[in-house]
């Protein structure tokens, strides 16, 4: 690392970690998930950044040249479209294939797991996933053991390894040449979300809660250790930065309070506590509104999460969780897309004045930032955070 960039990396990392440890850093850290905005800013179409890894990585280089960010989330797309084409993924739709070239990718939810699959799933989840689930999800893998299925397995595995390798190399460049710090270094999910988002789909899980609650409970029990393991495996020994956990169906008003307390929370709590016992902090990315559940979330061990505020009431979050967990958020994404720089500045100033005073605060947008956010609004957010966010 060049001297200056190394110094910058250390400064930013120290700032970020101090906030998560509830301390007062030199400045309020800026952590933005710029996602598809990165493509727009760099002048690439969505099709280009999803399919062409060079452009995907280059868009982040351009972003880092243009903005002063304390931490970044890396490549502006979780998925490499070519890899999904190789296996014929049914659950993702890509620009240039199913969608217009400049539309962002979308997830196609279905009841991929059926009610009658519960028993086999609970008996041996991995075996069921390989024998039943993956063939349903991928056209190229629809007949396991066939020539096409074997080729798609090889291509898929090789593609995935290639993607990870290239991302890893890109991260080395971002850190060394731009002093860029990662927002997170691992991934996991709430067990209920694994079941609800990925396997049963929203309608499926909602019916299950009424018609086969005992199966839901048993399935959650087998997912808990899997999600703990997955979090630790993706950490690969890195323990300074948090694990990213985007949380979905626990938001108000999906489940009624009884269901939330019986199904969503106990299984999620076990995962977070186990990760923390193993030294890994969770970035509790609470998408939507979690205000009614703040008291329960406060039961988690101090500092074991960073609580991210999207539409949760920030004042309530501060009152109930402040001093126990670092808070992050919540410049509205609609403001970044449709508002004016002055509004963004005022909002950022307000957040810092009211919630950042005693440390333990990270400035961020409410949700992942898409391609329609205006550049001048992102600049206003960063400038205001730097102007008012000095301790």
């Amino acid at each position, binding site marked *: 690392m060049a001297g200056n960039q190394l110094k910058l990396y250390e400064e930013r990392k120290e700032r970020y970690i101090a906030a998560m440890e509830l301390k007062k850093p030199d400045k309020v850290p800026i952590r933005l998930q710029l996602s*598809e905005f990165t493509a727009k800013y760099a002048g690439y179409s969505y099709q280009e950044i999803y399919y062409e890894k060079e452009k995907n990585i280059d868009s982040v280089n351009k972003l880092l040249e243009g903005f002063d960010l304390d931490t970044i989330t890396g490549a502006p797309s979780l998925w490499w479209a070519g890899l999904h084409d190789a296996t014929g993924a049914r659950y993702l*739709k890509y620009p240039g294939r199913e*969608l*217009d070239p400049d*539309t*962002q990718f*979308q997830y*196609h939810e279905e009841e991929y797991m059926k009610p009658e699959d519960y028993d086999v799933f609970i008996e041996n989840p991995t075996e069921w996933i390989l024998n039943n689930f993956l063939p349903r999800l991928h056209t190229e893998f629809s007949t396991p053991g066939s020539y096409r299925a074997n080729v798609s397995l090889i291509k898929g595995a090789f593609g995935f390894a290639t993607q990870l390798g290239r991302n890893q190399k890109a991260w080395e460049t971002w850190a060394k040449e731009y002093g860029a710090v990662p927002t997170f270094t691992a991934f996991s999910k709430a067990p209920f979300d694994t079941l609800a988002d990925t396997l049963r789909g*929203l*309608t499926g899980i*909602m*019916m299950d*809660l*009424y018609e086969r609650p005992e199966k839901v409970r048993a399935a959650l029990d087998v997912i808990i250790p899997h999600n703990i393991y997955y979090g630790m495996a993706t950490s690969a020994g890195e323990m300074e930065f948090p694990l990213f956990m985007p949380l979905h169906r626990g938001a*108000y*008003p*999906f*489940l*009624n309070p009884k*269901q939330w307390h019986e199904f969503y929370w106990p299984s999620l709590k076990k995962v977070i506590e186990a990760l923390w016992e193993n030294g890994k902090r969770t970035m509790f990315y609470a998408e939507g509104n979690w205000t009614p559940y703040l008291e329960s979330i406060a039961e988690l061990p101090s500092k074991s999460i960073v609580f991210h505020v999207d539409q949760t009431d920030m004042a309530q979050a501060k009152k109930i969780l402040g001093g126990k967990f670092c808070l992050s958020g919540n410049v509205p*994404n*609609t403001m970044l*897309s*449709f*508002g004016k720089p002055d509004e963004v500045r005022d909002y950022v100033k307000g957040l810092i004045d009211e919630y950042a005073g005693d440390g333990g605060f990270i400035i961020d947008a409410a949700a992942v930032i*898409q*391609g*329609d*956010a205006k550049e001048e609004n992102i600049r206003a957010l960063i400038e205001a955070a730097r102007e008012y966010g000095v301790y």
Partner: protein
Amino acid sequence: MTTDDLSKAIVELERDKVMALIKERLEAGDKPLSIISKLQEGMTEVGKLFESGNYFISELINSGAIMKEAMVELEPRLTGSKQEFRGNIVIATVKGDIHDLGKNIVVMLLKGTGYNVIDLGVDVSPEKVIEVVKEHKAPLLGLSVLLTSCLESMQQTVGEVKNAGVDTKVMIGGPIINDKALEYCGADFGSTSGSSAVKFAEEVFGAKK
């Protein structure tokens, strides 16, 4: 609060009881239409409970599924008798967006309160929307969007509907809809809440009487 046993059973999400009562009433010679109207009464109550924060999406989806199952039983018996709807409403998620949770909630609430809802699904082109609104002479069109990046598509769709001179009110919905978004899109009404779609429909169809 509804007093009919069947209406109450659907509010309480008692699926077996709902199905048993339907069977019982059909055998007793009740008209399928009067049974449906009792189910709709229950669904209206479910909508109110959702609006007041006592019911959640979990109850909405479940009551919708029970209603669907009940209709499988009742619909084939409707031949001859014409179900009276309060009016036609066309609903779609705009082109470029494939999200349908919010749209489906609105569809459920509107159907529950007695409208004939023509649901075009997701990723629907402005041309298709205009064609179907004209075909059904729908006084109300509902457009849904989740992604901020698809708001432009919403604006285009509303614009094309207005330019086409179709006589319909346009309401837009989605978590990103606020005054600014409404103004940008040029729609007649916009909201983030499903139940306010029902209120707007009351205004539109009330005014037509």
